[in-house]
């Protein structure tokens, strides 16, 4: 990782943490912000896939499928962005689905780790917690009409991702070579 990449990653990490703090302090209006961010992220991802197609996948056997996927993701990004001012319920379901799915994947990995006799407890705990957390959020959010907790969950995830990005950018990477 060169110096520019390190500085860029640290700044992105800090921005994520600051944004999480801002959302935490004002959760009421945050659905619009989150939906907008999701829309922007998907749109950016769509453009990234297009870039990937033109720089890499077009040389690959069957690479056209990447082009079609890029168009679909781009379309989905624009659609999500347009939801921001329409229906917060869809955004909640969307976020919960992502959260629960991530937990489910962790549980599957833990089961695989058990098979390979590796360390599985922490992963299983994290996966199970995520799934339970998502279900709890659904109950609280829909039945008790308290959606702020979902925002808090989103904030915690954002802080974690930001911290990991900063820590990764500080790792040493160069290798010495003797002629």
């Amino acid at each position, binding site marked *: *990782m*060169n110096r520019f990449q390190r500085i860029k990653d640290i700044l992105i990490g800090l921005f994520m943490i600051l944004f999480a703090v801002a959302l935490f302090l004002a959760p009421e209006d945050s659905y619009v912000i989150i939906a907008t961010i999701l829309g922007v992220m998907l749109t950016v991802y769509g453009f990234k896939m297009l870039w*990937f197609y033109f*720089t*890499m996948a077009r040389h690959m*056997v069957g690479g056209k499928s990447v082009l079609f996927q890029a168009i679909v993701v781009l379309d989905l990004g624009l659609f999500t962005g347009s939801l921001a001012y329409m229906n917060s319920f869809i955004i909640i379901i969307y976020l919960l689905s992502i959260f629960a799915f991530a937990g489910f994947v962790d549980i599957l990995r833990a089961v695989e780790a058990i098979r390979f006799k590796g360390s599985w407890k922490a992963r299983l705990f994290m996966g199970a917690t995520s799934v339970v957390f998502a279900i709890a959020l659904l109950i609280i959010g829909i039945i008790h009409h308290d959606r702020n907790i979902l925002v808090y969950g989103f904030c915690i995830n954002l802080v974690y991702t930001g911290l990991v990005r900063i820590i990764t950018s500080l790792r040493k990477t*160069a*290798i*010495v070579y003797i002629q």
Partner: protein
Amino acid sequence: MNSDFHYYATYCAAILAGYSHEESQDIAYSDRFVDQCTVTVLKKLKAPAAAATTQLPLEMMEVRTDIVGLQDITRIWSSFHFLPRDLNSDPEKRCSKRYRNKYRLICGPNGELLKSTVELAHGKSIQAVGLAMHILSDTWAHTFFAGTPSMVINNMTNRCFEILPDGTERRITFRHSALTPDDLDNSIYTSSIYVNYENSIMNLGHGRIGHLPDYSFIKYKFMPSWGGYEEIIKDNPSDYMHAFCQMITAMKYLRGEYDSFECGKYDFDAIKGLEDEIVAIINKRQLSSADDWKALGEKLSGHEIEPYDIEKYKNEYLNAAKGDKDNTALGRFILAALAQKSMVTSKIFQTGSKLAGYSVDYQQKGFKGVKAYRKLTENDKEADDE
């Protein structure tokens, strides 16, 4: 290649190259250990993790495929299992630098890096010889795949056929159950799952085609992602025979019998009278040829070959004083691994690619970066003093 070839076949080649039984066992041990020297193993030994020569599936599951994680993976797999054939090659059609950098990591035999690898082991320890032999034989088995996660290079279409000895073709079925053994009778093999993400660990090396490159008996045809819709025929029996004879040539050079190591030279003379036996072992349709290679090795040396035991040198290393660790078998292996990784990373870096990470020329800029590599500079100083 499977453990049978990396242990018993290497032993046979070492004996044929003129090494003693004990030396051949150590060479075979080091060759086999390349597939086991993970960060987990090194941490248990309290040895530098930077010397890892492979990664466990579980370790890879934990690796983040950000730029640092990708560089870690590429350093390990390109240096020890998928040595690039030509770091200056270009695809037929005009392409981006990003694509070209990955394309250049495609593994193959008889490249410049192979020559550098064998020469790096010259005058070094027996463990360095074993490590070099692992890399050499893998250049034959792992041809056409790259030691970096890449969908655009390592993926393939699902139309893959086994070419049977009578010339007929049988369609290969891939499944994704890691714990189920391959079904040779029905050509059902385990492979990694398709993941539509360039840097997914599922797209590392030959994962998408399963263990087909690791079986000596199989001949198959497939269509790799990078090949421009052309089918490639991989003839493992022929490749394994070349790998075996090239190992003999390389080890004769490392023993001092030849003045230089030249790519493309195979010591077929050394196996005169044994050709039929070796061809029979290579062509035998079985999951492991360990028993057959072992029997041949024992016939050649007249000694019983110890079964491979990963713990063999563990206590020697753990009990050695801090200053003496580099003089133990594992210490010498670690030094050889660091030197190889450093050399390959540097060569890739010199082509303008940062896929394997950054390399600092010690002679010009002094020591920078990962601490574990300081060992190399210390050894270099000692060599200068001597």
